[in-house]
């Protein structure tokens, strides 16, 4: 279970000043969709959960593990938070093969989520020896999802994973995302500005507007 209750105050944000309050609980096996316009703070929220940004106040907890607590001055660095973050642009490492990318975040000891299973579900077996520059946009995102899963995360964060793809590619990748969520049962936060996409993936949809997270009707 991921518990988030944070405030983010960014008076000098690039697009416009950001004042955000997010409060929700995300149980295992549930996918929470967050919709919002550009600049509403969707990415900022995900980055705060992943530890890439520090919220101004509040608490982030995953199960018994405290990731952030402003009052107790707890701020786990990103590399100590078991988070699988899929970025908008994939961010595959260009000097590594697909397989090396997939293995990058894998722990050395026993893993719940194993490489053959991920490769199979995402249908990326033929890509393993290729470099990211040899992949299409859809293939890159599938590899990025696989890489995030193999990190053995306790929560999966997807930051507009389809935004860089055309409609045809989106329709190709979307079933893989749904299957990943269904198969691994990870609490998943899916962020996008496209309503249909979020509705198709998420069990519950929230709107992020004027700094507030409200359940969509």
């Amino acid at each position, binding site marked *: 279970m991921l518990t988030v209750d944070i405030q983010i105050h960014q008076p000098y944000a690039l697009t416009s000043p950001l004042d955000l309050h997010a409060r929700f609980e995300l149980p295992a096996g549930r996918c929470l969709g967050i919709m919002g316009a550009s600049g509403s703070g969707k990415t900022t929220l995900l980055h705060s959960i*992943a*530890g*890439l940004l520090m919220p101004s106040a509040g608490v982030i907890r995953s199960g018994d593990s405290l990731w952030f607590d402003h009052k107790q001055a707890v701020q786990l*660095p*990103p*590399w*100590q*938070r*078991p*988070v*699988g*973050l899929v*970025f908008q*642009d994939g*961010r595959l*490492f*260009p*000097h590594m093969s697909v397989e090396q990318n997939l293995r*990058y*975040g894998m*722990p050395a000891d026993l893993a719940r989520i194993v490489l053959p299973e991920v490769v199979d579900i995402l249908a990326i077996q033929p890509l393993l020896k290729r*470099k990211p*520059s040899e992949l299409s946009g859809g293939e890159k995102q599938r590899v990025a999802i696989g*890489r*995030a899963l193999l*990190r053995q995360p306790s929560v999966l964060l997807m930051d507009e994973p389809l935004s860089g793809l055309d409609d045809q590619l989106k329709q190709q990748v979307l079933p893989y995302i749904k299957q990943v969520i269904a198969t691994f049962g990870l609490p998943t936060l899916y962020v996008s500005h496209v309503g249909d996409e979020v509705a198709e993936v998420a069990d519950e949809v929230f709107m992020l507007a004027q700094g507030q997270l409200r359940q969509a009707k």
Partner: protein
Amino acid sequence: MWNLSPAELAIVLLSLKVAACCVLVLLLPAIGMAWLLARKQFWGHALVDALVHLPMVLPPVVLGYMLLVLLGRRGWIGRWLYEQFHIQLTFHWWGAVIASAVMAFPLMVRAIRQALMQVNPLLEQAAQTLGASPAKTFLTITLPLAYHGVLTGGILAFSRSLGEFGATITFAGNLEGETRTLPLAIYSLTQSPEGDAAALRLVILSVLVSVAALLVSQWLERRLLRSQR
């Protein structure tokens, strides 16, 4: 004309040894300094940057003299090195390494810094979300992606060391078989009435060694780029 005497061969080998050691000695400090200047903002950044680049604008003889004051046998640090460990850098080939390393430092830092600045910091961020500590991120993402800068910096430092004259002769001296590298040997030969032919041979050798170093660097860079594509 082309038969090198054992003495001439020794000069070439000494020059190569000094240049190779110069690169090895510089590698870690140059990478560290380049990273500091490329990625960190701190009070005094501009001053550190200026100090790093000082050898590029100061006359080499001035740097050689400063090294002598600092590391010479009666120098501030040199005296202590000699008294504690019997280490004497002047009139020793390690002195030539230090002199050329000081001269080559800014070249290497500049090349690596440029390459580090081209590495997308978002990739480093991605590595950290995959559990990589800052050290692992640097070693597995940043440095491999900036490898061409390290290579270019190494070749620049090697070439600068091969051509280094002023700081070396001032600090390490011009001792045959110990600190007399190619430029110093050429200079010495031009001072002797009979040395023209030998000087010319060494000049041609200098050019050949430098061209070979540049060709090797281009070959390595091509290989590296191919492997990263």
